């Protein structure tokens, strides 16, 4: 059937989203009201006809396990396909050991049992749409050993910190893969996504571990592409792209999609982004409310003012409250007369006594989960 199986890697060590990540992995972050970040990589694979998928989890697996279920919401036929959640235990002694490679080695049995010839690897903390079936065709046609996906950006100087950048020659061979040192505006951000033969992948995992037990696959590829023994190429991705690598990136990715034309491009009817329903009822907007330029999920009760904001499921905004330029996660309550600006409010939080909260542009405020302020 499908030529490839998919792997969604766990949040890499170098990614740290302050606040949110205390409660769940980046994959499980709520995004744009009703989604979670992992909905994007899984929908990409499912829409590409890939229905054997391994999702690697390290910490706090509960919410992801429940969200993904058996993959029915993502159109994955549970008989023909399989959504496998693979845990890799984390060493407490030294964080350095907790690489993607150690996760793959822990579950090598299950990688080897996969019958497709190719593997597609995706990160769990990036948001984009990509047809991997098409990418796979181009990879096979090109004769390359490894094909990597990158996105050309013009704001690499103050964004995409802790991401990697690639350099390419004329034939689209990767000549280097290095950390983004934020020293150039224009740069090709590596999307942590690649395609190769399953056998090469297994080989690579073992070689990486032998080379250094603290190396990730990407670090190994960075060595290999200077060696020149493997044919490693890049393909440019077009369309919406965001990496959730820190709290500000999370905030900006949400805000960017308030541009409805941008949102409609990412959420194309040809490429549905699936998620799990919460069976919330529609949202009620009451007399006296003012709502402008906002995404409103279901189950909300809105009596106040909402502008330029992303509102999660079941949020309550009471009379006289003003919410501007903010991202509100599910089930939080903004009390009467409370004024929010540039804030991220985590799930179940309730802001009723603190009358004003204002983050700075470029440095949004964060309210912890279940907190009462």
């Amino acid at each position: 059937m499908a030529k490839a199986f998919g792997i969604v890697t766990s949040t890499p060590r170098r990614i740290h989203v302050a606040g949110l990540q205390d409660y769940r992995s980046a994959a499980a972050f709520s995004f744009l009201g009703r989604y979670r970040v992992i909905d994007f990589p899984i929908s990409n694979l499912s829409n590409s006809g890939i229905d054997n998928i391994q999702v690697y989890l390290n910490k706090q697996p509960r919410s992801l396990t429940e969200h993904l279920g058996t993959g029915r919401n993502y159109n994955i036929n549970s008989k023909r396909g399989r959504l496998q959640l693979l845990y890799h235990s984390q060493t407490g002694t030294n964080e350095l050991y907790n690489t993607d490679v150690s996760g793959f080695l822990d579950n090598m049995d299950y990688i080897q049992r996969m019958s497709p010839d190719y593997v597609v690897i995706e990160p769990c903390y990036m948001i984009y749409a990509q047809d991997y079936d098409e990418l796979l065709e181009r990879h096979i046609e090109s004769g390359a050993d490894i094909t990597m996906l990158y996105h050309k950006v013009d704001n690499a100087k103050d964004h995409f910190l802790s991401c990697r950048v690639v350099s390419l020659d004329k034939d689209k061979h990767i000549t280097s893969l290095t950390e983004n040192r934020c020293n150039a505006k224009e740069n090709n951000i590596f999307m942590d996504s690649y395609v190769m033969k399953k056998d090469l992948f297994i080989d690579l995992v073992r070689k990486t571990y032998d080379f250094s037990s603290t190396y990730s696959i990407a670090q190994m590829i960075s060595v290999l592409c200077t060696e020149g023994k493997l044919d490693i190429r890049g393909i440019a991705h077009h369309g919406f792209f965001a990496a959730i690598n820190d709290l500000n990136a999370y905030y900006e990715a949400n805000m960017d999609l308030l541009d409805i034309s941008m949102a409609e491009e990412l959420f194309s009817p040809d490429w549905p982004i699936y998620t799990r329903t919460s069976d919330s009822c529609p949202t009620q907007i009451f007399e006296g409310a003012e709502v402008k330029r906002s995404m409103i999920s279901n189950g909300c009760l809105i009596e106040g003012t909402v502008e330029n904001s992303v509102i999660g499921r079941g949020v309550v905004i009471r009379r006289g409250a003003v919410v501007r330029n903010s991202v509100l996660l599910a089930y939080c309550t903004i009390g009467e007369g409370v004024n929010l600006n540039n804030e991220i409010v985590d799930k179940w939080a309730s802001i009723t006594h603190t009358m004003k909260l204002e983050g700075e542009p470029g440095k949004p405020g964060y309210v912890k989960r279940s907190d009462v302020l």
Partner: protein
Amino acid sequence: MKQVNMLAMILAGGRGSRLHELTDKVAKPAVSYGGKYRIIDFPLSNCANSGIDIVGVLTQYESVLLNSYVAAGGRWGLDTKDSGVFVLTPREKADTGLDVYRGTADAISQNIDFIDQYDPEYLLILSGDHIYKMNYAKMLAFHREHNADATIAVIGVPMREASRFGIMNTGEDGKIVEFQEKPAHPVSNLASMGIYIFNWKMLRRMLVADMKDPASDHDFGKNIIPQMLADGRSLYAWQFKGYWKDVGTIDSLWEANMDLLDKKNKLDLDDPTWKIYTEDASALPAYIGPDAEMERVYITQGCHAEGKVKNSVLFTDSEVRAGAQVTDTVLMPGACVEEGAVVTRALVAEGVRIGRGAVVGSADSESILLVAKNVKGVD
């Protein structure tokens, strides 16, 4: 085994011709309601929440959409190993030809073999066209307590309207002493909701006899219930006190939608302990544009509002473009009000477009305008 040994059958046969074009392509129970629901989500979710695992849906008219809709029982969690929603249409058997259901009782009679597969102790009969939340497990507990042969759910209606309903005259303990179909001079205001619990073994015998009776209309209200009363069986009325609405006309469907705009309305779809489940649309959250004005609006996923919306219910994927005004109106799924159009006191059917600048409906019309076809723009 599971606690509730009761099987439910939903009578979803009706075309519902008073809903005009809304039921041209779909059976009445599949008509949309409340932004994201269909009417049949209510009895099905009630069943799921009441712990009923097997539900038969009896239908014969235009069942394709209804059929493919309810067959996905997972929407109500009714897709476990031993649960399911089953669409039951008339069929050819070894000894009979293909024939339509001749009445509500006949629809059950023709599916005795289906019911027998599960050997239930109780049978719950529901209709597919009411909006309400009811815990059938409580009704069953009442039925068992009273050792009844049948229990009928009733609701108090204003006395002056009672003559429009089937009225139950009961003793103090709820025992039914008389049943009057649309009485000219009602003595009680307890109207039948068309919801029955029967002891299956007893009902089965009655249905077998009824099938052979050429004089019978094969109807629960006209034949089975009166016969049971005549036989001196113990029938009880169980009084329901929540929100209940028959949405059989355009006006009543519109009203039932408008009811949702009230703060703390009685239907309370937001109650986490009694959710109404439905199909999940792959759609963005509702998007409200920079110049939109929204007041008293019920809005759901996939909506896109740029204009002015007041006192209205916006269903999945409906659109109100810039400069448009929508007031006292229901926009069904995918309906679109284009730039500058004005829509007032209307129910705009699924997928219908109101062209640029068009004016539709009026604030002082007596009844609600059903817009079932695209309206051309004026510029």
